[in-house]
């Protein structure tokens, strides 16, 4: 094992790089389609999103390979400093940030706008990996979990102040990291999943009494079936009471905590509101675009929904519409295939790491990418609420592309050095 593929480039995971590049190029082409104006069909224009994205990709390649050259220990030791800088930026953005679409998320630097929340995910991942690595000799305990959670939740708190709910929610995907490292149990994950389902149901069912009566019914039947086992009866009762309280509090949160546009979005996604010209416009047009793509799509630059601006924000959050419309089911499934291949590849990389640091970091990367993938595509096809987050490597935007690229290439850097770390 020692002397095989020992050269620097031989140890880099080229498959991941190929997948990354493929996604970037798919993104570039679809951004071109999204901003394509049939009346001025010039191929390359630096002023368009398409032209800018080309530069971002070019820069991202340089950044990516620079990372591969730098000693991985630099990043490990710099993790707290990076985290600190990002926190400073998150505070700065609240003071000097540009308000775009209701979110104060951008710091203008010349013609470029920096979005610190994109880099916050990276910094959080890195610091969490460093911290959990330091705790790796002990068995998972509550104190480590709490400190780990604090590392995650502090930037979440700052991002919520912008308020950029979508980006904030992305941090919660790091639950997979805690789960993989044994800090939370499978039971917790199951209950968490149940909680989400109940949350949706609580909002969906117009009268909470229907839900409460249903829960009571289920509980009664469960108790009857388990009438011989006293311990189970107690568990079921506790669970039942917790559910009732939870459902009631969801209603409270929905009515009093969420902002009205978020409430509307949830209403629309749950089908409670049918308003194709108002709030539901985005979702409706997005579904029309994707649905009208059918099996093979309308062809490159032929998507009428895309070309004629029926779908808003189509080069950023709704980029998947363009893919669905112009490349059809075949193209969409191909893209999903590439994504899943990349995610599984990252898990594969994670599991071959010898250090907790690299493994935690790798799971962090997988979690964040997965969350963006699921929420972004899910919202365009109407299975999750419309939450404004980008599709990594594909959506237009420098901050997003660079931060995800750095996130991924750091992993590749750590991966390529895994033997070295082991030897040290």
């Amino acid at each position: 094992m020692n002397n095989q593929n020992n050269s620097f480039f031989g140890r880099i995971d080229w498959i991941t790089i190929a997948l990354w590049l493929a996604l970037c190029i798919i993104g570039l082409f679809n951004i071109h389609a999204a901003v394509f104006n049939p009346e001025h069909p010039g191929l390359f224009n630096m002023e368009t999103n398409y032209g800018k994205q080309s530069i971002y990709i070019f820069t991202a390649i340089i950044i990516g390979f620079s990372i591969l050259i730098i000693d991985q220990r630099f990043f490990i030791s710099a993790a707290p400093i990076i985290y600190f800088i990002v926190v400073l930026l998150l505070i700065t953005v609240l003071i000097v940030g540009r308000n775009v679409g209701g979110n104060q998320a951008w710091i203008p630097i010349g013609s470029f706008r920096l979005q610190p929340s994109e880099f916050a995910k990276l910094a959080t991942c890195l610091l969490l990996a460093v911290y959990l690595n330091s705790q790796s000799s002990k068995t998972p305990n509550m104190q480590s979990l709490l400190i780990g959670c604090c590392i995650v939740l502090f930037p979440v708190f700052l991002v919520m102040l912008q308020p950029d709910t979508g980006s904030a929610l992305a941090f919660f995907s790091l639950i997979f990291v805690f789960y993989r490292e044994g800090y939370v149990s499978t039971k917790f994950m199951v209950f968490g999943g149940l909680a989400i389902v109940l949350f949706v149901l609580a909002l969906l069912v117009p009268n909470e009494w229907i839900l409460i009566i249903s829960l009571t019914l289920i509980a009664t039947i469960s108790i009857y079936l388990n009438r011989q086992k006293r311990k189970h009866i107690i568990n079921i009762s506790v669970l039942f009471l917790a559910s009732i309280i939870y459902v009631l509090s969801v209603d409270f949160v929905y009515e009093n905590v969420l902002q009205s546009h978020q409430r509307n979005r949830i209403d629309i996604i749950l089908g409670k509101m049918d308003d194709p010209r108002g709030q539901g416009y985005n979702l409706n047009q997005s579904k029309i675009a994707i649905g009208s793509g059918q099996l093979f799509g309308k062809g490159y630059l032929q998507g009428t929904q895309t070309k004629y601006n029926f779908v808003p924000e189509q080069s950023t959050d709704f980029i998947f519409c363009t893919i669905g419309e112009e490349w059809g089911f075949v193209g969409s499934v191909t893209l999903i295939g590439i994504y899943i291949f990349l995610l599984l590849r990252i898990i594969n990389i994670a599991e071959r790491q010898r250090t907790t640091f690299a493994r935690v970091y790798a799971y962090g990367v997988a979690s964040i990418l997965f969350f963006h993938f699921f929420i972004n595509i899910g919202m365009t096809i109407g299975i999750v609420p419309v939450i404004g987050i980008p599709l990594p490597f594909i959506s237009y935007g420098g901050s997003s592309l660079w931060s995800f690229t750095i996130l991924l290439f750091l992993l590749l850097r750590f991966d390529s050095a895994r033997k070295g770390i082991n030897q040290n």
Partner: protein
Amino acid sequence: MNSFFERKYIIQGIFIAIALLIIARLFYLQIIDNSYILSANNNVLRKVIVYPARGVVLDRHGQVLVQNEPVYDILVTPREVKNIDTLFLCQLLDINKEEFDKRLKKARDHSPYRASTFEKLLDVKTFAKFQEHLDKFSGFQAQPRTIRHYPDSIAAHFLGYIQEVQEKDIEKSNGFYRSGDYIGASGVERSYEELIRGTRGIKNQMVDAFSRPKGIFMDGKYDTLAVSGDGLVSSLDKNLQMLAEKLMKNKLGSIVAIEPATGEILTYVSSPGYDPNMMVGRQRGNNYMKLLNDPNRPLFNRPIAASYPPGSVFKVVAALTAQQAGVINPQTVFNCPGGYYVNGARMRCTHVDGPTDLIKSIQKSCNTYYGYVYARMLDSRGISTPEAYSLWREGLTKFGLGNPLGIDLPGEKGGGIYTAEQYTKKFGSAKWKSTYNISNSIGQGEIGITPLQMANIMAIVANRGFYYRPHLIKGIGEKQIVKKEYTEKLFAGVDAKHYEPVIEGMSRVVNMPGGTGYSVKINGIEMCGKTGTVQNAHGENHAVFFAFAPRVNPKIAIAVFVENAGYGGTWAGPIASMLTEQYLRDTITLPKHLQDRIYNGYLLPKVEKKKEEVKKEDNKIDSSKTNNQIAIANKKKELVVHHSQIVR
């Protein structure tokens, strides 16, 4: 290794499960549910109707009667209106600032993104000035279209006009017409609407999210082209028509000239007329109201909708039907002591004709003679008078009287002849005799005929017994198709042999010194005619003259009806003569002073104010209906006149 290693599988499982969930959803959206492709097309496609050019109408020699002329609508897209010189634009379009603001606001209310009409129907000249500066008026654009144009401003009643469809047209058409479309409203434009309007095209215009036009769907693959309407060749002779309209200037009445051999109408005048160009363009609304309120009723289509007692010209029909019935023959002689005084009937002749045979009766227009003829027709046939009357009436209907002839124009009336039942009802018993309604014998009484029917009688006489339904269009489309009903030869019920004595009488009217039409004799052409004068209770009598020429192998049959013109030979005769000669010889030899008298004659009635008001009210109702009612009312008044006053 790590003790939680197996959790990798759970995480991988979740990732794959979510991916499958997304794929399943995509499968539903993209493959199973087909409604999205429809929604996408609804989003992006606007079916734009491309209007075809209406068919052109030519005269019988291929000269243009109505054609299409380019005009321009100015459209405005309110959102794109920025930094324009409003005053300059107003000046170019000849509107004021308030009007400008009003129109812009209306357009904005309609849609700020979509182009709506700002100004309609700019003519080429006005548009040329505007176009020079069009680039300075951002948000404004021009849209070409066509309107009707009549190069010689003639034949308004014949050609008719088009107008925007009304609610009832839309309903009737099963949705073919849409609000804002144009439809033929009268004349040939209406009766040939379905042929002349052409086939519309459909353009699949794509629009963006703001309904702004963005090119043509699939490069026009699903578009259909507009097909221009069929051109029509009319039977009208343009030069003759122009002369006829000139002759009828400042007179009320009708002229109808027919080519006997075909039933084709050569001239069709309803006077007063109007310039058909008034019914198009920006001033149409004002012009239309002006015409509608004119007491002389220029929109009234007299040749087919007015009904008058024919007067003495009716004697021609009476002579023919009586011969066919066998009650007289050319040798039959009645004595005229200066009137018909039989069994209490009193019908005076203006002079004493003495013993009168058929030819002389026509030549002299002897009332007494036709009183006897009518008495024989009704009272001496071995059947009851009402039955005999029915036979008499049937003879008239074969001559095309009493019912519409079926001309290719909308709104044709049939005139009217009482039935036997109507008389029985009127007299309260079936035991009435010819003396009860003796005035029928000379074309007064309860007989109403249209000028078209009058001309058609002449065509029958010219043909010695048959006719083709009079019609205006002799060729449709490229193949010059003639409608089948106009190629059908119709027998008038009187054998050819009976015509000669009548024609001889008519010839003498014009060609023998002392004839009532001798003053309008055409040297070298044997024109056969008959004058008539119809009593008018309101003022001057109506003048009638009908004729055909030449006697052998006739080319033209003509009826001229001039209201309030007095004696038939004075006004109607010269007009018929001039038109006949013009048509046959392309020149007019009638003495200059006679011609000038006609050209300069002014016979329009002095309108009493009260009368005008009544007519205005009438005109507010459906005009054709009202016209008919007034015609009937007029007729009834005319019926009241004393027979003794009738002159030949």
